[in-house]
């Protein structure tokens, strides 16, 4: 059995290496006619870009993606520089008309994105030509290897029960060298994905056929990400099923997040795109879905007829009505641990790292500051955006709309939610984003803390302060601090994953929804002692 696992590991690593290796393959060349067509399609008014790009590609030597990217970005720079200089010049001359004219010639968007778009057309090579085979060698081997690694645990781990043996003894799960390697890989992955998508254009070639089948178009880097996301979740969900097979709550919850990721986050938007509708993830609630009220999205929805209108209304109702009502009845777990995609990845890929969340009081303070600050940030951004959208002015309250959107997308959307949120799993634990960053979690947390039926009930005086619950709380809640006082756990950050209840060796914790009265029950003397003393002291404290 161990042999099979080792073989699986090797196969997985081969798949991963091939996947990574594809980045360096292929050659990129653009014919003048293809270039013309591209520029036409984009509608660039810029004169220089065409000459610059033509210059970049005249030499017939095949380029690697890195050289290709260099040249495109150079062309981009030169082309824009030209007009920037003119702008500066007219500015000096105070020739406002002329100055204003120049803006239409500028090329907007990120240089790496332009390079990606061009590379998509320009790419040739083995990967592109043999997408199916390459899929087998990368995704296929990765999946096969993982399964060979994971499935034997059904036998190796023995009978159903808590399977945390050795977590703090292994380099992979105890912040050892393996964990650091995983961190570096994940962080690099996100940096490429968000900031240098052209470098990983070969990955899109691997899944082009799948994308074509699902939405009728070639794959973008986001398609790769979505597909990979689902694949990883499926594989790691199998791991969850095996690890927690004695615990029905975990099995149901895992199935639920898997379903919502695959169907709602992945399939439905793809199919909608293929039907010429805006691809929308119906479960992705604002303000987690921070660009819902961005002008391009609103325009898109308004131009999409009745489905667009439906999405607009649904999105608003989801955030304002469904989310708080569901949190009232079930706690925010209904979203964070049963529906959400970020939560879904955290609970599958991230499960081996859940113990790394910081339980200190210090971290709790930081959490409250940070998450609420981001909630405010997202709301201010939306307010500014909406004001500008409806009035047409570029700024509101002295805040430039484009600037605040870009800042949020960059700092929160890309860096916090992606690079740090997922990249740092192996060291900081699997819910860094959900705990410190997610504005939707902050919003639901406020409802959960003050107006909800959900709580984790502490079973009288049964706690032995062992600390398993706190250790495995991915949200860094010091569960034991409440349990050992006989107090129920009512915390805004609790995502109701149910692991504290699972790992507790004394049956102390139960997630449940019940009447609000008695939900918060500060106690000084625990059940089990003299009843008169309990009453006396607990009254005195109140």
């Amino acid at each position, binding site marked *: 059995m161990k042999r099979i696992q080792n073989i699986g590991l090797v196969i997985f690593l081969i798949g991963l290496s091939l996947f990574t290796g594809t980045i360096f393959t292929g050659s990129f060349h653009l014919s003048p006619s293809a270039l013309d067509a591209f520029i036409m399609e984009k509608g660039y008014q810029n004169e220089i870009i065409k000459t610059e790009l033509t210059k970049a590609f005249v030499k017939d030597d095949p380029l690697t993606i890195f050289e290709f990217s260099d040249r495109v970005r150079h062309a981009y720079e030169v082309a824009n520089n030209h007009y920037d200089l003119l702008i500066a010049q007219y500015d000096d001359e105070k020739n406002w008309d002329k100055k204003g004219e120049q803006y239409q010639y500028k090329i907007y968007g990120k240089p790496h994105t332009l390079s990606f778009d061009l590379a998509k057309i320009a790419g040739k090579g083995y990967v592109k030509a043999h997408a199916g085979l390459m899929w087998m060698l990368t995704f296929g081997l990765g999946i096969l290897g993982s399964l060979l690694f994971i499935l034997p645990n059904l036998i190796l781990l023995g009978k159903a029960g808590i399977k*945390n043996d*050795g977590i703090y003894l292994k380099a992979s799960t105890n912040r050892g060298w393996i964990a650091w390697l995983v961190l570096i890989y994940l962080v690099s992955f996100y940096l490429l994905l968000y900031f240098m998508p052209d470098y990983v254009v070969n990955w899109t070639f691997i899944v082009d056929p799948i994308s074509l089948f699902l939405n009728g178009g070639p794959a973008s880097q986001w398609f790769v990400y979505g597909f990979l996301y689902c694949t990883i979740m499926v594989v790691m969900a199998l791991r969850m099923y095996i690890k927690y097979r004695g615990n029905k709550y975990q099995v149901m919850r895992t199935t639920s997040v898997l379903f919502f990721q695959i169907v709602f986050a992945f399939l439905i938007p793809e199919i909608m795109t293929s039907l010429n509708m805006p691809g929308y993830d119906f479960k992705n609630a604002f303000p987690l879905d921070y660009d819902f009220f961005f002008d391009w999205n609103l325009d898109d929805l308004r131009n999409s007829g009745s489905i667009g209108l439906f999405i607009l209304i649904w999105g608003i109702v989801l955030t304002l009505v469904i989310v708080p009502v569901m949190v009232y009845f079930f706690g925010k777990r209904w979203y964070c641990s049963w529906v959400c995609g970020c939560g879904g990845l955290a609970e599958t890929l991230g499960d081996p790292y859940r113990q790394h969340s910081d339980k200190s009081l210090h971290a709790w303070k930081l959490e409250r500051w940070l998450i609420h600050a981001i909630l405010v940030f997202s709301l201010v951004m939306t307010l500014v955006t909406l004001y500008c959208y409806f009035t047409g002015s570029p700024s509101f309250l002295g805040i430039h709309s484009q600037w605040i959107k870009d800042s949020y997308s960059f700092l929160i959307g890309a860096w916090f939610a992606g690079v740090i949120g997922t990249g740092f799993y192996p060291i900081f634990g699997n819910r860094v984003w959900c705990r410190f960053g997610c504005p939707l979690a902050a919003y639901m947390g406020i409802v959960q803390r003050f107006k909800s039926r959900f709580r984790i009930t502490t079973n*009288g005086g049964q706690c*032995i302060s062992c600390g*398993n619950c706190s250790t495995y709380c991915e949200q860094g809640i010091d569960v034991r601090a409440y349990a050992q006082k006989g107090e129920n756990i009512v915390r805004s950050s609790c995502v109701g994953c149910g692991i504290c209840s699972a790992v507790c060796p*004394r*049956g102390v914790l*139960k997630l449940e929804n019940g009447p609000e009265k008695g939900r918060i029950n500060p106690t000084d*003397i625990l059940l089990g002692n003299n009843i008169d003393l309990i009453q006396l002291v607990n009254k005195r404290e109140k």
Partner: protein
Amino acid sequence: MKHIVIIGNGISGVTAARHIRKNSKNQITLVSGEAPYFFSRTALMYVYMGHMEFKQTQPYENWFWAKNKINLKQGFVNRIDTDNNCIFFEDNTSISYDQLVIASGSKTNKFGWPGQDSKGVIGLYHKQDLEQLEQFAPNNQVCKHAIIVGGGLIGIELAEMLRSRNIPVTFLVREKSFWNDVLPDRESEMINKHIKEHHVDLRLSTQLREIKANTSGQVTSVIIEETGEEIFCDVVGLTAGVSPNIDFVKDSNIVTGRGIKVNRFLETNISNIYAIGDCAEQQEPMGERKAIEAVWYTGRMMGETLAQTICNHRTAYHPGHWFNSAKFFDIEYQTYGWVWAKPKENEARFYWGHKNGKMCIHLNYDKNTHEFIGINNFGIRMRHAFFDKVLTKKKSVSYVLAHLSDANFDPEFYKKYASEIVSKFNQENNTSIELKKKSWKRIFSEA
């Protein structure tokens, strides 16, 4: 302002300190030789098994003590001078006190077996024991075989620990079935099976005669009393119970028996000295309780109670209904009220077991009045508050059965067995108890 010195930073000493702090401005010094900060002894196993790091067994962050003005003093006390209100440490330094609380816990029992002090013979009580275990049984290369002597709760935990590192274990149990002096036969038998399922070589009705060591004093084998069989091993775990850790008290004027003798107010014979937790021995045991109860919960309750007395609100220790819990490998166990190994004269029993052999409940009630006396539940979690109320209100066994859904504390979506249990009871006793639907109102209604 008085100076309260507490010897022992276990659950009882720490609980006392916390509650004294809540209720007074007294100066508090918490003394321990074992570890600078309070940790949960019950979690030692999880450290070895790699579920937790040692620092995670500490329920309070290190700043907690200074912030609450609880002075910590690390060192072993070896003498108490009750005439001069002074305790002395190994290094001959001393501290004087106005009131002294002894909460020194337990130590591993050793019954004078030959070779019991060899290297590789360990107990499982103190942090140092864990360090020893890590040294002598880091893996199954260094420790090719381990013997555990004594079939109680700590013994089975040690077995689980060693098995987590794939170390072959032989488990010597004196009783004819595991923990059979506490558990009724059927539960005990269920655990026997479960132990074997985890590939432990369980030897029932088997005692230790002798531990053999090589010339460098390292254990090499044990000899079985009954058969004379020699079993080779690298580690011997002694888990045949614990007894009060009070050697340093013996030479003082404080009266001791097996433990430090205390009255209902946890006062010793010396007026400003108290004893709580594992080391305290009640002069007259209360009700069905033993004079020494070496469990977590009673230590905590004594700490809660004594703090009241020290803060000028003299309160007798008067614990409520008995409860306890444990985990045997994968099987959780809870108990509320009393279920003796053997039924008493006036008692009737009802047992339900799941066919998977990992779940059962055992009810104890009065034959004549049908008053509920206690429950053992294995593999099913039950609500403490529910049974506490039932016991206080002296409800009948049929009340308990009818309200089993209120009592259940299993996680959501777990299969419920209440109706199966109730119908089995009805069948066996010709009754027609009907299971009531779970009611939040009842669950929350005041006792």
